[in-house]
């Protein structure tokens, strides 16, 4: 396995706030990695550190095996599309695409034109006059057509409607399948991308709390629902991520059940259901996890 990004004990402090708190992980070559977490969890800071835009307080970052900071050899192979991207005054979409075609060695102009048509972005209007969705679409076009060996999308879809977002995922997936590259996707629309991800990183309050293959996370948690007393009896001593009750009915989300345990729960008359990646992340990051079933 080749590590395109390798982060070791990385910390970034702003005053007393640790935006990134002692994170260590790798991003594998040619995988689509999801960087998930709530707003303000530290996702953007982490990606800015990786791309040498922010300076780390402590810890190590390797991009293609090298320090990213001021390193043209590795930064030129990287494309970082972020929601908050600013553009020079008076820049129009056509100018953004022109500059991108100069800067990215693997730029595909024809693909860019196709994507512009698909997203219906006006290229002859100033970036400032575009709607949020149109500006986001320009970023998405650049991100896909750059074919950069490491492409990072940081919530690239602000203002894009569901149709356009689906088009983004479909085009990205299709182009990735034909031209494999390393993709990091930071998002809080987890359900939409869950099936695209090969690996999942979850960050919460600056700390990396999940670092696992997506397949491993699927089915790693289970909802158990049924009579209050039964649910309580079953969940006692287990890793409860989330709990809820309505009168005599209770529901818990439990991590790490074996198939046999699930079968036992079902045999005991409890409802056993799957937990989506999104629900799992919500359970892990909402700060009220591990509460007892209210009694």
């Amino acid at each position, binding site marked *: 396995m080749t590590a395109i990004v390798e982060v070791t004990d990385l910390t970034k402090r702003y005053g007393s706030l640790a935006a990134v708190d002692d994170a260590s992980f790798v991003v594998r070559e040619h995988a689509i990695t999801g960087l998930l977490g709530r707003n303000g969890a530290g996702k953007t800071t982490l990606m800015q550190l990786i791309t040498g835009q922010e300076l780390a307080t402590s810890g190590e970052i390797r991009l293609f095996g090298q320090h990213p900071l001021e390193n043209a050899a590795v930064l030129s192979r990287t494309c970082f599309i972020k929601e908050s991207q600013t553009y020079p005054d008076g820049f129009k979409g056509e100018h953004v695409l022109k500059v991108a075609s100069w800067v990215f060695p693997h730029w595909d102009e024809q693909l860019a034109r196709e994507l512009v048509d698909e997203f219906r972005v006006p290229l002859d209007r100033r970036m400032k006059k575009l709607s949020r969705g149109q500006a986001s679409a320009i970023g998405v076009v650049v991100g896909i057509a750059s074919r950069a060996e490491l492409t990072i999308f940081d919530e690239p879809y602000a203002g894009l409607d569901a149709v356009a977002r689906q088009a983004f*995922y*479909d085009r990205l997936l299709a182009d990735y399948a034909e031209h494999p590259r390393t993709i990091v996707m930071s998002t809080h629309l987890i359900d939409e991308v869950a099936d*695209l991800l090969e690996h999942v990183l979850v960050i919460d309050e600056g700390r990396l709390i999940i670092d696992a293959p*997506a397949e491993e996370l*699927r*089915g790693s948690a289970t909802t158990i629902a049924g009579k209050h007393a039964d649910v309580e009896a079953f969940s006692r001593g287990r890793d409860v991520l989330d709990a809820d009750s309505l009168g005599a009915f209770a529901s818990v989300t439990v991590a790490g059940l074996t198939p046999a345990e699930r079968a036992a729960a*079902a045999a005991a008359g409890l409802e056993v259901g799957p937990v989506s990646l999104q629900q799992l992340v919500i359970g892990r990051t909402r700060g009220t996890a591990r509460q007892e079933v209210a009694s």
Partner: protein
Amino acid sequence: MDDERPIFLQVAELIENQIVDGSMPEGAQVPSINELAAFHRINPATALKGVNRLVDAGLVHKQRGIGMFVSPGARARLLGQRREAFAEQYLRPLLAEAAKLSIGPAELAEMVRQEAGSAAGPAGVVGTAPHV
């Protein structure tokens, strides 16, 4: 794609279903990894894992540079496997639910007979029913 089971298993099962119901006969070409990924909107690595499962089981074989094809005897083998799994996957949940409703085995058997009799098609159709 449902949330419970690994996607690669679901991909493999979808292809298996098509082999079993005859829509993908022996010798037929299996969609490429990229086609599967695009269609199901999943990571190509996941689609590959699913297909490799079928290759490892000898149900599908690769022809270098051409594609992947359903292997001879694949359907018969899948039918055999499914029959073996039938009790585990269908009868046990059925009996568990029946027990909850206080339906005994004899009563259940009678219900099965009646249901089969009233069904339009012949009993024993190998269905496309999803198996859980």
